[in-house]
């Protein structure tokens, strides 16, 4: 499957993401700049992490209003898979492609470390290569990862199995409601998550627990 990575000023995990997609799919992703309104014909669009527009106003708020996001919305409506990691997750929320919001970490500190994640829904296009309930390792690095949604929204996404990843074994690093680390849209083709699976895909990273996410999303048999 073909993929694309979005670039915006201030994103800095784009090269890690391009490397992960290239290593796992065997093909380099297309790179799309923020002003583009026509997207290449791909099966997966990834918005990587970073600090788009310096996190001004709110994290992801300005990036979410750039022309490329209208094009991504149209692709998502057409069923193309969209993955947002870290700042990419914040951008998807600000763009209204996912429910809820990400607030300042409850500790008020930037947190950069490894946490444990539970795969709470292994029946999505992004998690099929994991088992439900599987605990994986994953690095995080963020200041605003504290997931919030109003009570009604929270109940709805829980009832509909839209919570895909939860911080496990007491490792919730940011105060997220219900330990939520990753959320998918109702249709099941747009996933946002705070942890960085692209930084744990090979032995040199100290592990490869993130690999199955890309293998699932790219329909590659997990090696």
């Amino acid at each position, binding site marked *: 499957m073909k993929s694309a990575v979005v670039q915006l000023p201030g994103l800095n995990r784009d090269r890690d993401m391009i490397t992960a997609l290239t290593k796992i799919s065997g093909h380099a992703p297309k790179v799309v700049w923020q002003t583009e309104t026509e997207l290449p014909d791909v099966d997966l669009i990834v918005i990587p992490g970073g600090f788009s527009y310096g996190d001004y*106003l709110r994290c992801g708020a300005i990036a979410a209003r750039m022309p490329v996001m209208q094009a991504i919305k149209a692709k998502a409506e057409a069923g193309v898979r969209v993955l947002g990691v870290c700042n990419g997750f914040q951008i998807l929320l600000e763009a209204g492609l996912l429910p809820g919001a990400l607030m300042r*970490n409850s500790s*008020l500190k930037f947190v950069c470390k490894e946490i444990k994640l539970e795969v709470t829904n292994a029946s999505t296009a992004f998690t099929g290569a994991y088992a439900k309930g599987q605990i994986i390792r994953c690095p995080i690095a963020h200041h605003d990862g504290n997931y919030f949604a109003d009570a009604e929204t929270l109940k709805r996404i829980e009832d509909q199995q839209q919570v895909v990843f939860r911080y496990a074994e007491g490792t919730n690093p940011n105060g997220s409601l219900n330990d939520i680390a990753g959320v998918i849209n109702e249709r099941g083709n747009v996933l946002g998550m705070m942890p960085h699976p692209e930084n744990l895909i090979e032995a040199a990273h100290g592990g490869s627990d993130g690999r199955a996410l890309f293998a699932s999303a790219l329909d590659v048999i997990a090696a």
Partner: protein
Amino acid sequence: MIKARVTVTLKNGVLDPQGKAIEGALGSLGFEGVGQVRQGKVFDLEVEGSDRTKAEADLKAMCEKLLANTVIENYAISLL
């Protein structure tokens, strides 16, 4: 030219860790009797023209589209 001030505040029930930290700092400075502190944002804008009704409608659209995240924030517009 119309001058306006937009105030964006967190909705009730949304946890405000920054407000909490400020609350604690005020207490440690010896200010007693400070209840809850909630942090918000203020935007001062200049809007061209003199049609206040249009300016207010435009500002509302700006708040809905960008200045506030209505999932977690309320906004108030005042024309000065």
